[in-house]
């Protein structure tokens, strides 16, 4: 035992090494390359050269402020909606699911297994101007006669909400499920009102799930471009659409790289603020 213990300090590093090395090589190093590229200037015809072109950053913000703001607006709305929509269901499964729990969870995860793009294309069909959703909304007067859903911001937000819903619902469920039922019963005895018990005990105990869920929804949503591309119109384009077209169509790598960094920086800053508000332990577990 003694011999074993002496070598023990090495064990965690050996366990960590392969995974961390992979992340370092294929996550950190590429970010370094991306940063380098974001400071290049030139054009695709003559090639790009590194020139400390900080101007890429300011011009990215100047030219695409609208898309940046829209990205965070859409992602924010989608996150809130996803939270409101899925919390009751996560609660229901966690406390009322009984032996059906796993089956119900399966239903939440199931849409995951239809390719993201196919799901979004299906929404394109459902929300179409001649589809039944628009017809019903016309009939009950929610939509004005010429109104539509497809190619609007509403459709984009709805698409984002739907596509990232499992990311919200699952962490919520996990944290709710871990709550000891006896605590809630005690709280209900203590606070007389169920609602008060929920607010004072159940909800705070589910906070780790709320934090994880909102982050897991908000982050991919802010960088998404597929929903805006398939369900939106140009007036609904997000920063992801700009980065994508700069990278894949215009081959304007420095501009795309600088925008990627701005996006990442804003998201990290928001996470830090969020972490300060709710406590870091919730974040990294």
């Amino acid at each position, binding site marked *: 035992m003694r011999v074993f213990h002496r070598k023990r300090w090495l064990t*965690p590093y050996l*366990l960590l090494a392969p995974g961390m090395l992979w992340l370092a090589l294929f996550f950190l190093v590429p970010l370094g390359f*991306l940063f380098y590229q974001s400071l290049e200037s030139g054009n695709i015809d003559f090639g790009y050269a590194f020139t400390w072109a900080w101007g890429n950053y300011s011009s990215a913000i100047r030219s695409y402020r609208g898309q940046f703001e829209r990205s965070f607006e859409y992602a924010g709305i989608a996150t809130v909606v996803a939270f409101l929509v899925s919390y009751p269901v996560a*609660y229901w*499964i966690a406390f009322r699911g009984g032996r059906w729990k796993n089956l119900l969870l399966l239903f939440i995860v199931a849409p995951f297994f239809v390719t993201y793009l196919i799901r979004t294309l299906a929404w394109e069909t*459902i929300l179409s101007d001649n589809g039944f959703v628009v017809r019903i909304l016309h009939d009950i007067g929610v939509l004005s006669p010429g109104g539509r859903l497809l190619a609007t911001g509403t459709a984009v937000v709805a698409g984002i909400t739907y596509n990232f819903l499992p990311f919200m619902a699952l962490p919520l469920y996990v944290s709710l499920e871990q709550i000891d039922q006896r605590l809630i019963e005690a709280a209900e005895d203590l606070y007389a009102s169920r609602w008060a018990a929920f607010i004072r005990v159940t909800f705070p105990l589910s906070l780790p799930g709320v934090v994880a869920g909102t982050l897991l929804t908000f982050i991919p949503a802010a960088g998404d471009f597929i929903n805006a591309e398939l369900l939106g119109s140009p007036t609904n384009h997000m920063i992801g659409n700009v980065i994508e077209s700069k990278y894949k169509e215009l081959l304007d790598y420095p501009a795309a790289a600088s925008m990627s960094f701005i996006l990442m920086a804003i998201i990290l800053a928001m996470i830090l603020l969020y972490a300060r508000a709710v406590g870091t332990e919730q974040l990294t577990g």
Partner: protein
Amino acid sequence: MTSVAVPLRSRRGTLAAAVAFARRHVLTVYSLLFFAYLMLPIGVVIAFSFNDPKGRFNYTWQGFTWKNWEQWNAIPDLQSAIQLSLLIALIASIVATLLGTLVALALVRYGFRGRAATNLLVFLPLSTPEIVLGASLLTLFLNLTSVLPIGFWTILIAHIMFCISFAVVTVKARLIGFDRHLEEAAMDLGANELTTFTKVTLPLIAPAILAALLLCFAISIDDFVVTYFNAGNRVTFPIFVWGAARVATPPQINVIGTAIFVVAVTLMLANVVFQNRRAKQA
């Protein structure tokens, strides 16, 4: 574990049960509506896999046919795309789960210098939008084209990269939640660390490893953005869909989508049934 939890839950006051019953109905109806909403697009996808469109697009219902299922690979390149996706997902999920489980074990079981940095490095890829992951990897790979042409290996490397963090988080959650006394008991009984790990720890975290594996597989096979940047000329299934959707939507896309869905759900159902049965026996 479940056998410990069950008696706690069943101990409920009768009054509380009555109130809970009333509450259950509101929540139940709401939850059923929620599931209907969740399944709506899936239903559309499945239904339209049986459509018989006259032209290029599979948007309006024209009539029922089995044809698309019988000729699921009639579209050129579709079969190779789905094969590539499956292969990548299989390898990526296995490798990422292995690496991720090791990291999770280190994080939960050992105190060591560099913990915070490790946590951060696991957390960062999760907090980076996919488009940034894809773009940054492409800039790296563009510089390596002489040794590593952009294609199969670059897709695989990328997929393993973004799966690792998900695997770590999944396994870690389970490790934190479980009772260390069981391991201590095993050690007290004279088992060494390795035996304890294989006989006690591993069986206990096996469901978490399986969950990580499934999650990684699902994320990998579904990934479009990162792959789109790093696939070069290779075509995975999502990339095929993206390309096809712009000019035509052959119902075979729905067939494949439905097939993946059905296989995945069947596997998970089997898993649920199996676990329920085991829980009952326990």
